[in-house]
């Protein structure tokens, strides 16, 4: 399984960025190989609108099955779930700790958007 984390950092010790649509980067962690890659998302950072939808498209293209982020708005939620991507909202700071929480089952997937658009 591939898990995408929203972040401004470059490795597992980095913090999770609370924004999904306007996350500066995605860290994609492969739970089988235990390897990760970091993908730039900065083109969406300054989008006037539709950032969540664009980011969801990027996530699906990268083949991620799950997203771990702070918050996810309604359009991104709709796009991600339609593609079968699970969304985990968390307050956990570090990617490492959040990864552990997902793998141990301590975090459960969201059942709805947790914020309004343009929060």
């Amino acid at each position, binding site marked *: 399984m591939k898990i995408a984390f929203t972040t401004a950092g470059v490795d597992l010790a980095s913090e999770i960025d609370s924004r999904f649509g306007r996350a500066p980067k995605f860290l994609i962690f492969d739970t089988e190989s235990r390897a990760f890659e970091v993908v730039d998302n900065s083109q969406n950072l300054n989008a006037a609108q*539709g950032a969540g*939808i664009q980011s*969801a*498209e990027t996530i*699906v293209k990268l083949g991620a099955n799950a997203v771990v982020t702070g918050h996810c708005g309604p*359009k991104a939620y*709709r796009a991600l779930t339609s593609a079968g991507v699970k969304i985990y909202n968390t307050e956990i700071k570090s990617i490492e700790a959040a990864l552990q929480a997902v793998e141990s089952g301590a975090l459960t997937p969201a059942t709805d958007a947790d914020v309004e658009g343009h929060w």
Partner: protein
Amino acid sequence: MKIAIASGKGGTGKTTLAVNLAFAAGAHTQLVDCDVEEPNSHLFIQAKRVAKEVVTLPVPLINEELCIRCGKCARFCEFSALAALGSIPMVFPEMCHGCGGCMRICEQGAISEVRRRIGTVESFDSNGVTLVHGCLDIGVAMAPPLINAVKKQINASGLVILDAPPGTTCPAVAAVKGADYVVLVTEPTPFGLNDLKLAVAMTRELGVPFGVVINRAGVGDDKVQRYCENESIHLFDEIPDDRRVAEAYSRGELIIDAVPGYRELFVRLLDKISEAAAAGKAEL
């Protein structure tokens, strides 16, 4: 002659200027309120509504049987109104600007149009002055198409005063585009000057000739005047900071009727603006 009244900053007096100029000009003038997110020109006039129409946008509807999931429509859409995630494209109608591009790019003919209501356009008559305004439906964030629908009501034969929305983003551009002349209203304060500079940049980019009116003259400093001098921008006039004007405004009255001396000021201002607009038009 189409004259747009605009400003970078909100609350500088665009509506005050637009409404009073229109009524100073009198019958056969069209006053076009382009601030569809918050139309307010009508608050200052006694008028009878003569027409009302609903404005809709064409948004895509995907025929799932014809769609081959190629994703061309989603890649074409500049506004992320379509998202192709390997499945049938998802439509986000609230993002759609109604350009129709997705329908044209789809080789399968899998996209048809459905109408999405975005607001209304109303026309009013007040002693021969026609007011047209648009009202965006609550929750709709799609001002430019409605502004364009409002502007379709323009009858170009007489004087047309357009009251533009504040700012320098798409709604302001939609309102000002196609005008023969732009009057930028500002106030003599640091905020007024900062946003005037933005509005000047927008208007220059659009290639429309323009001049400046300072409202509430006396409340701030002389930096707007100095800026206009340095930039060779024509400064028409200054409307003084006058408590009587504020009181008349708060009662929803026309300044030209309520405060002595102001009809003359606005008639004079209208003459100067019309002259500059005619000259600007001649240059083009």
